[in-house]
């Protein structure tokens, strides 16, 4: 009997000593500041605050803006990984919220929209954090408008990443031809799913319960 129990005890001991698998969440919020969409950044603050209220100790968050060329750390407004102690994490959340609000107060519109660059930066951030659950929130009309010379027709490695497009507003041209809007969303869905990610669209910002 003892000999039978020994392997079980060894297995349990090894399981206990094995490096723990991550349980944290990595969140990257992209905020479109280009053109007329810059008027919506106040709504983005609501998303950031909601996200902060849902995150726990050990989770990571970064908020970045979508600019003319977004594949750069310069466009990251703020990033943090919450402390082990929940009370310290609370303090970090408050400070983070203040910094993001301060930035959004002085946000200026960008001439171009580089969503792909922002997503590449998000993938890099999430991979560095080695989060168990990776999520990218894109607060944009999803209309990519690249400046001349920027190459963005590259595949995205979004394996295990949830991509959520928030507040995807309709442009004037979409009103004339809705196929443009639907085609835009379908194109992004295809891009994300080809990269191994999971795509969702949430336009009702009053009901964010399904976000996490």
């Amino acid at each position: 009997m003892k000999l039978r129990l020994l392997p079980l005890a060894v297995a349990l001991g090894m399981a206990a000593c094995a490096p723990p698998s991550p349980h944290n969440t990595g969140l990257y919020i992209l905020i479109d500041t280009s053109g007329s969409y810059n008027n919506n950044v106040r709504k983005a603050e609501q998303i950031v605050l909601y996200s902060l209220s849902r995150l726990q100790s050990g989770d990571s968050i970064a908020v970045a803006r979508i600019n003319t060329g977004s594949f750069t750390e310069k466009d990251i407004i703020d990033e943090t990984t919450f402390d082990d102690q929940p009370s310290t994490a609370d303090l970090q959340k408050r400070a983070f919220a203040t910094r993001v609000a301060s930035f959004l107060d002085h946000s200026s519109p960008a001439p171009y929209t580089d969503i792909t660059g922002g997503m590449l930066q998000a993938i890099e951030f999430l991979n560095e954090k080695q989060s168990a659950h990776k999520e990218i929130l894109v607060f944009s009309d999803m209309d990519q408008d690249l400046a001349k010379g920027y190459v963005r027709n590259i595949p995205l490695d979004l394996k295990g990443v949830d991509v959520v497009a928030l507040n995807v507003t309709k442009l004037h041209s979409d009103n004339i031809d809705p196929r443009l809007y639907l085609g835009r969303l379908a194109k992004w869905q295809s891009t994300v799913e080809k990269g191994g990610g999971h795509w969702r669209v949430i336009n009702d910002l009053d009901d964010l319960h399904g976000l996490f």
Partner: protein
Amino acid sequence: MFSTSLFGFTPWPVVSAAILLVLVVAGLYFARDTAHQAIRAAAGALARALRVASHSVHKAQEHLAARNRAVLLAAGREAKERIVEREFVRAGDTVRKDLAGYPEMHRRLSGAILRMEEDQEKAVEVPPEAPGWTQAVKAVANLDARNAGAEILADIHKSMVKAHAEAMDSYREASAKRHSLLRGMMPEWRLIRHTLERVNKSVESVIERSQAIDRHMTEYEAIVRGEDRAVSVLSSSSIVYFFISALVLAVATAGAAINFTLISRPMAEMVGGTNFVGMFRTADIAALVIIMVEISMGLFLMESLRITRLFPVIGALTDKMRVRMIVVTFAILLMMAGIEAGLAYMRELLLQDDLATNALLRNDSTASIVNAHLWITTAAQMGMGFVLPFALVFVAIPLETFVHSLRTVMGLIAIAALRVLALILRILGNGVRHLGVLAERLYDLPLFLPLWLESRAAAGAAPGAVAGIGSAGREPESLQEYHS
């Protein structure tokens, strides 16, 4: 395709089918005995196997029942010994207490009786002195009056009146004294009555204890003799104890869950909220460990107090060592209770902090208003944090009952399961046997014509034989073989 080729060996499919049918029936008829033997052998083997299995299961059930009975009797004997021992101790205490007061009681009773005897002697009524003048007066009265008898009589009369008055005074004085003595005996009577009442009460208590001991001894003897009634009583008691202790343990588990909720959140501050051991948060495990340590300390405390008997080693310790264990375990419990109260207070602070942060993140200004009666919930949480560890100490009592009754209940369940299994195997065995007979009959069904012809031929050859379709004469033989 297959049917076409099958019925195509003659130009007429119907003829082909008829020929095939005849061939098949003939084949089946000639192979009938062999086929019957095969069916009989297969069904018989299977039935025998099932019957053996049923028998084995039945034996196992009997063995388990005997084992269960022995365990139940042993447990009952031990429990009864404890009860009888306790009753003897109580009776001994009562007798010792009364006997210790007996010399004093005897002295008081003797003193009271002596005093009463003395008073009684003093109170004896002294009859008034008989008047000695009566005869003298009579003699003088018979004298001649001329001899101046009248004067003598007058003097005597005067003296008599005087003596009478004196005697009456003396009598009244003696009576008053006697009444006074009798009145003085009343407290002594009361003292004797109270003392005797106390003695009566003690004797009645001893009699009650002895009756209880008699009753327990009768039950104990029944258990020692292994009577069925004793086993039945012990068994039903075990089931009742099992459900009651399970209910109390469920309540205790709920208490432990509340305790866990109180301390798990602040434990995250101490050991971190992001560490995991396997699938579980380290903070949750730490909180659970604290509760388990409290329950363990409670078990040791109860063992040291000899309220429970789960660990014979603790029960066998010397009294000095046991007292030390009681002090140590109680001190640890007290410390744990203090820690829990502190954690409960910390939890309230952390919750307030969380609420404030969430209110800020929701832009909710109303949530930041501090409740004036918040101290009540804080105090309640701290009180619960302090009291629950001590409440969990008493889990040891239902746990002991649960563990002891679990053995019996599991045994009873296992016996019932084995009994059902044996029954199922037996039914299956019988079913297989009858299926064998049914298979033989089904085999004979397409052969009704040759069998009928055979029976006719047999009837013609041996008049008086039973006629009928199939080998009806062989049926009893077949069944007999099966039943054997």
